[in-house]
């Protein structure tokens, strides 16, 4: 179990970070997902672990999205907040970079490419983003991705195709 978690935890963390836009929130998502996975699925056959683990990760990301939406609604209702001050899909606090934080990117060129990639990935609808990362990055099959996402294989293919088109369009001018 420990070896399995070691093999997936960093990519799962980065997926959560791309989805949430926050390193702290991504850590919370990962912690909750690993805890729930160990509790609920440790007894399952190992070949089922990866899609089941990512299913929990996706559920946690979805829970985070719901909580964030509620938080944004409450924030907009406060009298000190001006209507329309925040975008619906962006938390301004999360957009502020910590100047003291170490730069996680290797070189300027790679860093710029990654920032551009993350920006396009974040603009994808959540389901497209998740399907794309699970298929391309984690290497899950269509069937495993469908299990992880809790949807049909047809939906996986549709989400993947649309995500790929958007990425091609969004990255064509800036991709190295």
């Amino acid at each position: 179990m420990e070896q399995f978690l070691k093999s997936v935890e960093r990519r799962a963390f980065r997926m959560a970070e791309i989805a949430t836009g926050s390193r702290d929130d991504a850590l919370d998502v990962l912690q909750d997902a690993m805890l729930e996975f160990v509790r609920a699925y440790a007894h399952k056959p190992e070949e089922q672990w990866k899609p089941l683990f990512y299913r929990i990760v996706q559920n946690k990301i979805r829970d985070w999205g719901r909580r964030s939406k509620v938080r944004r609604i409450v924030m907009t209702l406060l009298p000190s907040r001006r209507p329309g001050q925040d975008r619906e899909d962006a938390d301004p606090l999360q957009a502020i970079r910590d100047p003291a934080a170490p730069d996680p990117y290797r070189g300027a060129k790679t860093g710029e490419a990654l920032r551009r990639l993350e920006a396009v990935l974040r603009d994808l609808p959540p389901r497209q983003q998740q399907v794309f990362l699970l298929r391309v990055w984690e290497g899950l099959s269509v069937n495993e991705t469908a299990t992880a996402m809790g949807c049909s294989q047809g939906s996986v293919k549709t989400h993947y195709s649309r995500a790929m088109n958007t990425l091609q369009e969004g990255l064509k001018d800036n991709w190295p």
Partner: protein
Amino acid sequence: MNREPDLSDHIKRCLDESVEDLDALTTAKIAAARATALQEGAPKRLPWRWPAIGLATAVVGFLALMSTFRSAPPPLTAEQREVLAIISSEKNLDFFKNLEFYAWLEKNRDVMKGG
């Protein structure tokens, strides 16, 4: 036509590099999260519990067995039966009221015989 696979490869490599370049603090936090999950998520095993329950069961069973096969108490003597009859008889409750007198009588039996 080959644009799509190339793009996927580039994206994968770019994301892989971002994972490799995670800073030490974040890596440590991820490791701590894993350790916590393994510690708290694993089913609680109490190695002392089952032996303790087994031992307690064995002791109770042994005592029950001993009480079943324990030899019957020795038969009462005639005097003991008489005393038991007196004590258990409702008609002789006066015996308890005069217990002090009977104790005095027993103590002075020899004196009274001599007198």
